[in-house]
């Protein structure tokens, strides 16, 4: 019942005319201000395709009709595959999926509770944990392995993810060579170049800088992924009041220009390739100008962006379910729930960062994945809403039971009891005496116990050993365990 892909869309913070106002304003920014692009190749690509390019100022400006013509080439549906087909994500429309995000630098150790630098083993273990949690639908590589040298990070991070979960693996990338190696590795796992293009079990993230900038390093990496033709997210992360206007509407106007830029570059070079309209709208605490990943306003903006993506008929990479809290606690609970709920109810497709992350995305905690699995389950149940049919109106049942009776052992109760309600496994619903007898533990401790239990017992379907042998000979720096 909590599989991803349920249709959202009941929460719509924008009216249709407001959506058009945001769109028109973005088009004016594109035409009058434009994007600053710090990559000569990208500037030439934009110029050759007919945009107005000022090479001296590295500025790309474009008209609405030119932009919308290229946007129309982008697919309205993108399928991100898992090693196991049952984990495939069909992104588009108002279908909702939630998954992890990255890239954090620290982990709260499951045993000691201490914050320490993340290592490659944490990528493996979080992947294995996520593989067993049904309300986390995909795996964005969550942490940076501090025990590896930069040139070995890409391929080893992706391998650690791919070999420990059969869910889709997406990740940020660090070097061009790394991108290519990751793609070759995934081709070997899938049995060839075309097989991977047909069932992309990996996808990549390359960033756009706010305000209105495509930088040299990321744009170069972006073009490398575009040439490979694998699914791509190109998120900008404007901070309202710092790197974008303080108003939520103004931030979305600017974000829209930035988000479309990456998509435009991809569709010019490789028309029809799988791209996601990507958005990480954020805010700052006005008291300190400190960055915020989980303010309720972030949730509202993600919901509005979902409406924009639906207006453009593009699959959306959205952002919710993070926390500013340093530990899994009350704050992490309400911050995650509020932002995930808003984005999901709006029908955002690929809600990343919605598992494991705390400390504004700088750390992950193992038990937080278990807690977020539960939050996501509740969110998906809310997205599903309630079904009103002749049968669910239950007239016959009400007549059958009558005044003073009970519904406990009625056939209809039996029929619906496992599907009508979301059943949490962390939340304690027992009476006081039972809770007391079970050690008076709180949700965080319960989640720790569940995480330990999964890590002790769960072994995901492995990558074929013969494939691993081949990979080892092709990629000497690959760390297989």
């Amino acid at each position, binding site marked *: 019942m909590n599989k991803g892909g349920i249709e959202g869309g009941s929460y719509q913070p924008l009216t249709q005319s407001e959506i058009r106002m945001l769109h028109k304003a973005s088009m004016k920014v594109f035409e009058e201000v434009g994007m600053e692009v710090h990559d000569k190749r990208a500037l030439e690509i934009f110029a050759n395709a007919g945009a107005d390019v000022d090479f001296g100022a590295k500025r790309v400006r474009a008209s609405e009709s030119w932009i919308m013509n290229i946007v129309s080439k982008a697919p309205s549906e993108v399928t991100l595959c898992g090693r196991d087909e049952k984990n495939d994500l069909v992104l588009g429309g108002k279908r909702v999926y939630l998954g992890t995000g990255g890239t954090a630098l620290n982990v709260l150790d499951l045993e000691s509770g201490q914050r320490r630098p993340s290592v490659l083993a944490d990528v493996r273990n979080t992947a294995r944990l996520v593989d067993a949690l049904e309300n986390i639908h995909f795996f964005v590589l969550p942490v940076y392995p501090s025990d590896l040298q930069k040139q070995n990070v890409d391929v080893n991070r992706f391998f650690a993810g791919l070999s420990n979960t059969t869910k889709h693996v997406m990740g940020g990338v660090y070097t061009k060579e790394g991108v290519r190696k990751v793609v070759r590795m995934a081709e070997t796992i899938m049995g060839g170049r075309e097989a991977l293009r047909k069932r992309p079990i990996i996808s990549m993230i390359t960033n756009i800088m706010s305000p209105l900038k495509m930088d040299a390093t990321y744009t170069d990496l972006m073009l490398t992924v575009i040439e490979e033709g694998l699914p791509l997210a190109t998120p900008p992360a404007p901070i309202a009041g710092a790197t974008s206007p303080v108003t939520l509407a103004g931030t979305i106007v600017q974000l829209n220009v930035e988000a479309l830029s990456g998509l435009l570059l991809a569709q010019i070079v490789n028309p029809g390739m799988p791209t996601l309209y990507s958005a990480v709208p954020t805010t700052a605490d006005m008291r300190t100008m400190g960055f915020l990943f989980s303010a309720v306003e972030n949730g509202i903006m993600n919901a509005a962006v979902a409406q924009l993506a639906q207006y453009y008929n593009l699959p959306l990479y959205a952002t919710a379910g993070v926390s500013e809290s340093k530990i899994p606690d009350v704050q992490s609970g309400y911050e995650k729930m509020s932002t995930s709920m808003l984005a999901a109810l709006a029908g955002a497709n690929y809600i990343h960062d919605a598992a494991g992350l705390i400390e504004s995305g700088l750390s992950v905690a193992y038990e937080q994945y278990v807690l977020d699995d539960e939050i996501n389950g509740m969110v998906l149940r809310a997205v599903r809403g309630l079904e009103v049919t002749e049968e669910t109106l239950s007239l016959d049942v009400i007549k059958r039971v009558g005044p003073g009776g*009970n519904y*406990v*052992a009625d056939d209809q109760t039996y029929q619906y*009891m*496992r599907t009508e309600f979301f059943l949490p496994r962390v939340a304690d619903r*027992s009476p*006081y*005496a*039972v809770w007391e007898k079970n050690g008076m533990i709180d949700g965080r401790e319960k989640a720790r116990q569940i995480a330990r239990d999964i890590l002790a017992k769960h072994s995901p379907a492995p990558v074929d050993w013969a494939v691993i042998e081949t990979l080892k000979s092709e990629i000497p720096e690959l760390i297989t365990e």
Partner: protein
Amino acid sequence: MGKYFEEISQNVITAKQDKVKELTQQAIDDGVDPVEIINSGFIPGMNVVGIRFKAGDMFVPEVLMSARAMAAGMDLVKPLLLGREVPSRGKVVLGTVKGDLHDIGKNLVGMMLESAGYTVINLGVDVPATKFLQAVKDSKPDILGMSALLTTTMLGMKDVIELLKEEGVREQVKVIIGGAPISKEFADKIGADGYAPDAGSTTELCHNLIAR
């Protein structure tokens, strides 16, 4: 003959009422001892149900459906016992105390106990102390269970226990109490023998009290 028992048990567990009836009838026609059908077919099935319920794998409505399937089989067996007693784990009298009209929790306890093999006599709601006393004298239950939802009515439980003492029958019955405001401390204070925090754990409480 043993071939029926395993299958009857399985169908009790999966609450296949029609199948339980069919198999029970076949066993009867084959000359299987009716008491054996209960002891080796129905009860082992319900024991599994109890274990799965405790583990959280089966839900309350499923337990009750299993009990209903067993009861359908029991209806076929009972007339053949010819005066022999239906095997029972024990007899329980239940009621909601005077002034209190809440009965869903108490009824749920009753259904759960029946499904675990107890004979349950349900006195209903707003039961005065004298009626509890009469039931203890007449039905001679192993256990008397009292329920209250209100802090104002829960004190009536103490009156019942005092009355049982005055009439000299307190020692012949175990008294258990339950309901949202009830705690172990309250149960100890008024001299009850046991308390269960929810319907599901009442069964185990009764098992333990009777085994003593």
